[in-house]
């Protein structure tokens, strides 16, 4: 369950990165559609956070420790919204590059989460 969601979130993060990277390559700032994309990816991260906590509450143990698992869940949750706010403050192509970088960072976090959970 969690593994499937980790995979989906990781892929969605990469798609977001590619999409915003494309916008940046055409010298465009992030637009409404990009923010909807960010919202979708953020929603996946929220669902992942909730499911992760529920699994912990039911007594399951991540392979590499509960603290690290929760820390990475929180990091994954904060990642894209933080980049999104920064792109609001920077209305040029560089805002798009920042969100793109945010997507890549989230994808890396998802790979780490997969390992930490022990899938």
């Amino acid at each position, binding site marked *: 369950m969690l593994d499937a969601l980790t995979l989906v979130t990781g892929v969605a993060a990469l798609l977001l990165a590619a999409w915003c990277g494309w916008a940046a390559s055409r010298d465009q700032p992030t637009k409404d559609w990009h923010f909807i994309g960010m919202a979708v990816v953020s929603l996946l991260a929220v669902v992942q956070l909730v499911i992760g906590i529920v699994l912990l509450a039911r007594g399951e143990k991540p392979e590499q420790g509960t603290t690290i698992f929760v820390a990475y869940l929180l990091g994954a949750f904060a990642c894209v919204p933080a980049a999104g706010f*920064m792109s609001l403050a920077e209305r040029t192509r560089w805002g798009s590059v920042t969100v793109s970088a945010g997507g890549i960072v989230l994808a890396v976090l998802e790979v780490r989460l997969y390992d930490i959970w022990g899938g």
Partner: protein
Amino acid sequence: MTSVQEKPARTRLISGPGMLLVWFYGVMVVGAVSRSVFQIATGFDRAPLAYSLSAVAGVVYGFITYSLVRGGETARKAAQVCCAAELAGVLIVGTWTLVDKSAFPDATVWSDYGMGYVFIPVLLPLSALYWLRRNRTVTQ
């Protein structure tokens, strides 16, 4: 985020590519600080040198992030010094971990020139130094 108040005299260091730098520095702050806090709290004796170095790296990253966001000539110079120190740190610690592996039972942020972080620790100070140099205020 848009309501950042700035005195007109202060050089803005976060416009354009600067925003991307702030993002990466922010990520490294979270990465280095949370990692070292966790490691120091749970098993400092296992690799005291490595964990302390990660903590120092986290503090340096935090200061550079703050300087970039603050802007202005003084902050720019301070950030420049810290980026140079950061670069020196990555190079020294990176070489050290390769030469004498026994000194580091566990990895630091700067081990093997930051390979565990896709070499961002070594690329970041280089691009930051370039960015800060380009933004110096020309004084007559």
